[in-house]
């Protein structure tokens, strides 16, 4: 066994997993409070990255472009909640899911109408050259992305634990009816959550955009988040992080060590195999809340 190589693959996988977690967190935020699996998260991520890069290419300074994009994402999140989800409240989950699927196509089309179809490079000023630690190469950019993800999780934790709206969010996540009964405004909390999902989409969009280039296929990164959610649970931020790490490591180790026996190219589906296996043992995921219904 070539242990330095194994370590390199494992570390690379874990760091890739952090990038998947960034996308998964956006899903968790919305699912936890409203029970909606927001399929438009990928399109929101694309819109954020495309808006930011288009503004900087038109000469806006980094921070001005970031603030304007942030404002656009807040507006999009709030608009989706107000115009699509709120009128559909109390509809079956599949209806809400299909609504977000439709929203996803609208956002993708609008992004291309507004900013054009060209691909763009996005340079965040972080060098992507490898760093050698004891013979193991580690990407500086991946370390940066992991630090950003860590900071974002910390910020979200503080927000939900110590702010009024955050506490309201947790109350709604625990029991919507009880939250209503004590006078919490569901509308306001849902709007805040969609806004937060827009902000998460911006952070994920910038990091994924810097890695892949800003182009239409950026919205496909949602496919990487789905097995993460199955593994970690749809309603747990900690689950999104741990699930991302597991999926990243499993994908890379399987591709390198098992892939050659299957002709390669297995990492696209091996994460789903792992997630399905997990689903059979633990349907709610690692950290997901177990659903108990009175019948």
């Amino acid at each position, binding site marked *: 066994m*070539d242990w330095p*190589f194994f370590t*390199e*693959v494992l570390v*690379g*996988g874990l760091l*890739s997993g952090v990038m998947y977690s960034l996308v998964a967190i956006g899903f968790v935020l919305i699912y936890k409070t409203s029970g909606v699996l927001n399929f438009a998260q990928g399109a929101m991520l694309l819109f954020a990255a495309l808006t930011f890069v288009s503004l900087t290419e038109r000469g806006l300074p980094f921070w001005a472009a970031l603030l304007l994009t942030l404002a656009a994402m807040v507006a999009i999140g709030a608009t989706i909640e107000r115009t699509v989800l709120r009128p559909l409240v109390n509809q079956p989950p599949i209806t809400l899911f299909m609504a977000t699927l439709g929203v996803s196509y609208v956002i993708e*089309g609008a992004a*291309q*109408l507004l900013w*054009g*179809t*060209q*691909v*763009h*490079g*996005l*340079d965040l000023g972080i060098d*992507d*050259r*490898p760093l050698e630690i004891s013979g193991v*190469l580690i*990407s500086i*950019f991946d370390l940066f992305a992991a630090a950003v993800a860590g900071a974002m999780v910390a910020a979200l934790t503080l927000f939900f634990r110590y702010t009024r709206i955050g506490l309201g969010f947790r109350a709604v996540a625990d029991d919507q009816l009880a939250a209503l009964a004590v006078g919490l405004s569901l509308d306001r909390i849902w709007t805040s959550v969609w806004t937060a999902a827009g902000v998460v989409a911006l952070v994920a969009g910038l990091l994924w955009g810097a*890695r*892949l*280039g*800003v*182009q*239409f*296929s*950026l919205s*496909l*990164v949602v496919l*990487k988040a789905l097995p993460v959610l199955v593994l970690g649970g749809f309603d747990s931020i900690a689950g999104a992080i741990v699930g991302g790490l597991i999926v990243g490591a499993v*994908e*890379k180790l399987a*591709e*390198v060590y098992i*892939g050659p026996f299957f*002709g*390669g*190219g*297995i*990492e*696209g*589906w091996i994460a789903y195999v792992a997630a399905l296996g997990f689903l059979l043992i633990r349907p709610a995921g690692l950290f997901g809340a177990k659903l108990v219904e009175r019948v």
Partner: protein
Amino acid sequence: MSLPTALKSAFFAALLGTAALTPLAGAQADEQYFPLQSYRVGPYAAGGTGFFGGFIDYLNLVNTRDGGVNGVKLTWDECETQYEVERGVECYKRQKSKPGVAAWNPLSVGIAYAMIDDVGRDKAPLITVNHGRTDSTDGRVFKYVFPLLLNPYSETSGIVNYIAAKEGGLEKLKGKKLAVLHHGSPYGKETIPVYQLLAEKYGFSVEQIEVPHPGNEQQSQWLSIRRSKPDYVVLRGWGVMNPVALKTAQKVGFPVDHIIGNVWSNSEEDVIPAGEAAKGYTAITTQASGAEYPVLQEIVKTVYGANKGNLDDKKRIGSVYHNLGIVNGILNVEAVRIAQAKFGKRALTGDEVRWGFEHLKLDAARVEALGAKGLFHSINVSVANHEGEGRVTFQQWDGGKWKVVSDWIAPDWALLRPIIEKSSLAYAAEHGITVRDPAAEEASN
């Protein structure tokens, strides 16, 4: 049509399922019609706007400058496919009812595959410039399909010949190690047997590594490459896979100037998102990029000067996809011109234009007369050879533009022809197709 206008038309057309509005919709008796199954929205819109923009710019040039081909106006309309096969087929069904169809140019492997039987029944040529089924090179079996300039096997041979030239000759390939990083699709896998064949012939070893679609994660593949230390990596990618490959290569410390891209990994869209990581990357092409060629200068002056240019962003004039569209326009128009010389200066049937393609011979002098000297080399299509012996060249990205770094290189057609015929004859047997006799057909002409 400006890009936002074209995009809006395409977007609403996609929503309504109707053809996008274009300046010249429909065809009259003295008009030759090009149905365009284009894609201006969706994941591959960047390539679609460039290619179809170049194609339309050339048709516009011929109409504006020459009044059409021998007085026959060229018309076209666009139907938005979003690069989806079912939409492409739907467009085909709708557009084929219009009179004067010259040729189909979907620029999509999937749509082209889905149309092969239909174009045979409807007797109209299907052009798959630089792509498509390799065995459709054999026109004895695939009468209406034309993978003009370059099929995937010729591309493979061209790349190996280029690497050999860099190393000092084909004999220097012995003992070398190649890795082919290919897209996880039928397109990506098509060249697996040819690389094996060439490896056995020239004595190099080859490791073929698949990247699952869409290719936005390649850490494990590149770590494997780093471990096996190949002399060269051939990138046979598509879309987002290409910039991610270049970025990940940088991440694992593989030298970019030892990565050679194939013909669908050679555009600005493939390198710009990779930023600094793409500087020094080399890729094969059948047409040089740049706007310095006389035909492009005429397009700038005549078409864009009259505000009829198809590209909204003029900086894209002379880009890889735009120039491919222009070259494709030249090949289509010249096929019509050649067919007119036989059948008369009028709107032709699809079958007559097919005859034109089968006699499409543009030597260096004719290419120069068309204002395309240096833009592409030549073409020599025949009944038996629908590819037409296109030459390839290699271009290197300097961080801002592509720069040609090789002469025109000829693939090893003699070596490839028996494999192509084996496959095409099997197809003929499977589909009950009578193999054509080129000599007898030429004699009867």
